[in-house]
C-alpha cells in the first residue's frame, strides 16, 4: 500500500538561517516548524485559525502558521519567537522590546498564547512609525485577533504601550 502523501523538499530561511526540510505536502507550517525543524516555541491552540497562538512572521507579515501549508513557505523568510531576541557582541541575548515589556508588565501567565502575541505585536510595532503616538484603539486592533485565556488582556495591552515607548526611545 502506498502512502497517500507525496513529499516536497522546501528551502526556507528561518530566523535568518537557511533550512531545508522534506515534508509531506499536507504538512501544516505549524507542524513543520514544531516537529520537522524542532522550533517548538510556536504553539498550536486551535488549528483552525482563530486563536493566533501559532502566529509567525512570513516575509514581514504575521500569519497563522496553522492555516498555511509548509510547502507554501518554500523560498520565504520566516521569523518565529525563537528569533525575536538577538545576540549581543559578547554572545549574550538581548530581548526584543516586546519580550521585555511582557515580562515587565506581567503580560503572560501560562505562556501558551504568548509566542503568538509576541510575534503579532513585534510585527505590528515594527511596521509602524514609532515616532507617532500609539493610540488605545491601535493597541486593541493589534492584539484583538489573538486569544488568551489567562490574563484578561489588560497587561498585554499595557505591554504593547511599554514596548512602543521603548522602541520610540531607542529610535530617538
Amino acid at each position, binding site marked *: 500500500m502506498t502512502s497517500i502523501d507525496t513529499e516536497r523538499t522546501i528551502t526556507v530561511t528561518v530566523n535568518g538561517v537557511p533550512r531545508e526540510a522534506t515534508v509531506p505536502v499536507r504538512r501544516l507550517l505549524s507542524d513543520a516548524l*514544531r516537529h520537522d525543524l524542532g522550533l517548538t516555541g510556536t504553539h498550536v491552540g486551535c*488549528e483552525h485559525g482563530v486563536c493566533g497562538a501559532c502566529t509567525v512572521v512570513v516575509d514581514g507579515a504575521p500569519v497563522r502558521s496553522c492555516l498555511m501549508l509548509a510547502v507554501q513557505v518554500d523560498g520565504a523568510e520566516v521569523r518565529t519567537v525563537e528569533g525575536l*531576541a538577538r545576540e549581543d557582541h559578547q554572545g549574550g541575548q538581548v530581548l526584543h522590546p516586546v519580550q521585555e515589556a511582557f*515580562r515587565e508588565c506581567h503580560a*503572560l501567565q501560562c*505562556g501558551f498564547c504568548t509566542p503568538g502575541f509576541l510575534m503579532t505585536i513585534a510585527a505590528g510595532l515594527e511596521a509602524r512609525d514609532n515616532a507617532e503616538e500609539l493610540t488605545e484603539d491601535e493597541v486593541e486592533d493589534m492584539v484583538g485577533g*489573538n*486569544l488568551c485565556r489567562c490574563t*484578561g488582556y489588560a497587561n498585554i495591552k499595557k505591554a504593547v504601550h511599554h514596548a512602543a515607548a521603548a522602541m520610540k526611545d531607542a529610535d530617538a
Partner: protein
Amino acid sequence: MTTKLFGEPVRRREDQRLITGKGRYLDDIGHTALAAAFVRSPHAHARIVSIDVDEALDVEGLVAIYTYEDLTGPMAEPLPVLIPHPQLHSPRTGFPLANGEVNHVGEPVVMVVATDRYVAEDVCDRIVVTYEELPVVVGVDAARAAQHAVHEEIPDNIAARHHQETGDVEPVLAASPRALSFTQYIERSACMPMEGKGVHAKWDADDSSLRVYTSTQASTSVRAAIAAKLDLSLDKVEVIAPDVGGGFGVKIVHPWPEELLVPMAAIALGREVKWAEDRREHFIGSAHERQQRQEITVGYDDDGRITALDVHIWHDNGAYTPYGIIVPIVTATQLVGPYAIPVYRVIVESVFTNTVIVTPYRGAGRPQGCYAMERTMDRIADELGLDRALVRERNLIQPDQFPYDHHLTFQDGRPVIYDSGDYPGLLVKLKDLVGWDEASRLRSDAEARGKLLGVGMALYVEGTGPGPYEGGHVQVLGSGKVLVSTGLTSQGQGHETAFAQIVASELGVPIEDVEVTTGDTRRFGYAVGTFASRAAVMSGNAIALAARGVREKALRIAADVLEAEPADLEIDEGLVQVKGVPGTSIPLRTVAVLSNPLRYAFDEAARQATQFAKPGDDDKPPIAEGDAPGLEHRDYYSPIRSTFASGAHAAIVEIDPATWEIDVVKYAVVHDCGNVVNPMIVEGQVHGGVAQGVGGALYERMAYDADGQLQNASFMDFLMPYASEVPDIDIDHQQTPSPLNPLGIKGAGEAGVIPGTAALASAIEDAVGRRIASMPISPTELYDLVRSPDSEMTATAGRRAGTGVMA
C-alpha cells in the same frame, strides 16, 4: 533587607523561558514518539454494534489499534469515582474505551497508534463503527422529566441528591412577613485552556519503569492511578507536569482515559507514545461546567432582612460522575456568601445527561451559588423599592462575628466556618470605586445619548485552600543554590516566583539562588493538586514551614562554628551572622557543606567537609542522634479547614436599544485574599478571572442541540472574549489575614470569575427593566426578551416609568 520579598511585585522567574520560546509544554516533548489518535463517538447515546478495522489495516505507518476488547485487568473496569460521597447514590463512570455503549458525543471508542498524527487520523477515518442509536437526554429539564434514561438502570437520571439544612425552613418561611419565589437558569461554559490536554509516555523495559508527562493539575494522583490501572508498583512510575498551558479545573480530573491508554500502549509497544488533544477533542472529550436550574424561595422582612432561604437546584452533571458531587456541594455551601441567613435549606439534585462530563471550572459551582444569592438580593430590593446595596448591607455578616459558623459542611467534609473578613468594608469600597451613588445621574446622561445604562453588583465569599495537605521540601546545596519542591502543579500562577519569594524571605537568601520545582513526582511524591485556589495557601505554607526548618538547622550548625547561641544569629543575603557583630559570619552554603560529613572529597566544597578536614569531637558520632545529613527540611501543611477569601464586583453596562449590544463600560473589583505574596500575580489572577466571568455572562455557552450534538465545538463558534470584549477593570484591595495559617494568606486563583454572571445580570436588568432569569445573555436574546409580551417588567422599572407597578 533585600531578601524580604514577601508581598513585593517581584517579576516572574518563569517568564524568561516562556517569552523566548523555550517553554516545554506537553507537545514539545518526545520528538520521535509515536502518535495516538482516537475514534470518538459521533452519537450522544448509542450501543456499539460492531467495530470494523479492515479498511484501516493497510495504511502505511499504522502501528496498533486498541478497542475495549484489548483492555485487560483493571483497565477493563470502569474509571474510578474519584470523590465518592454518601449522597452520590448512583455514581457512574465510563471505561477508558467504550464498552458496548456510548453516552456522549466525543467518548473514546478506539485508540490508534501510528508513526505520526496525520497517519493516525487517516487510520481513524477508515475504521467503521456501527452504532444503534438510543434516545438522548439533553439539559436539566429533560433529565428531570426523565422520559428517557441516560443509564438504563437509573430511570430518574438522578445521580445524587445533596441536601443540607441549618434549621426547619418551612415554619420560618410561613411566618415571614414577606416571601418570594422564582426560578432561574445558568448555562454551560468550559475552562478552555489554550493548551489542551496531552500525555507522553516512555517505558524503559530494562528497568521496568515508566515515565509519563501529562498536562495535568495533579501529577501525584495521576501517578497513583496509572500504577493501579496498569498493575505497576508505584516506585516504577514517575509522572511529571511540564509547562502547562492553562488548566482552570479541567486538568484536575484524572485519570483521563488517555492518561491510562497512552502509557498502556507505550508499555505494550516498547516505544514512546504521545497524544496531544486537538481543540475539537477538547470541546467534546474533556469537561464543561455551570449548567443549573435554580428554584429559590426566600422569606424576608420589610427592611429586606432575610429570614429564611430555601433553594432547590437541578445540576447537570453530564454523562458520568468521576469527580463526584464537588460542584453541587460547592454551589450549595458557598451560595450563602457574605450573608447571615437565619435558616437555610438547600437540595441539589445532580442529574445525568448525554453530554460531556461536568467537573470543576474555575469557581467550581461558586458562580452559580453567587448568581442564586445575589439575584435573590436584587429581587428583594426590587420588591421593597430599596437600594440593592442597602439590602445587601443589612444582611451582611459583621466584622465582629468571626469566626462565623454557617453550620454547613464544605466540599472537604469540614465545617463552613468563615475565619476572617470585613464584608461591610468591601461594600463601602465597592460603592466608592464604581460610583454606585452616581448611578441615576449616569443613567440620565446615557439616556440623553440614546443608551440604556444599568449598574449591578455581586458579593461573594470563597472557601480556598482546602486540605487535606500539601508538602514542601527545601534544600541548601554546597553551591549555595536553594532547591525547593512541592508536589502540586502549576498552570500559569507563577508558583516558581511566589514560592521563591517565600523561601527567600523565610531563609534570608537572594531569590536568584532559589530554584522551585512543582508537579514532578521525582522530586516530591506526596501532594493533592492545584485546584480550589489552594496552591499559595497549601504549598506556600508548607514551603514556609520547610524553610523555617532549614533555617533552624542552619542556625544550630552555624552557632557551633561561630560559638554563639542560635538565637543570636540571623541570616541575610545567604550569610549567617551574629546579630550586631558584622564580620562574624559564615555563608549558608558552607553550613550546607558542614551539615553533611563526608568520606570522599569530589570537589573543593566537599573537601571542607571530609572527616579529616575538621576536628570532630571523638566522643560524639559525626551525625548526632535524631539528626540527618544535609541542610534540608521537608514539612507539610494540613489545615483544620478552608480559609475564606471574599470580594465584591460591580459593573456598569450601556445597552444600545438599536442593536441591543451590551457594552460593559465599567467593571470594579474589591478583593480580599488576606496577606498577599505577590500583588502583581494576584492582580493578574483577578484580571483573568474577570475576563472569564464576563465571557460566561455574555458570550460563552455550550450549544447542544436536542440530539446531543455540540453545535459550536470550535473557537470560531464558541465565543471566548478577545481583548475587545474585556472591559477595563478597576481594582481595590482589602487585607484581612487568615488566622488559620502561618502566612495569613487566602487563595486568589478563582475569585475573579465568581460574581461576573450575577453582577452583569443585575446591571442588564437594571438597564432594561426586564427580569433577567437566564444567563448568559446575548444581544439577540436580550432583544427577544424585551420584545416578548411574556417578559416580566421589574418593579423598579415600573416605579421609574411612574406606572405605579408595585410602587
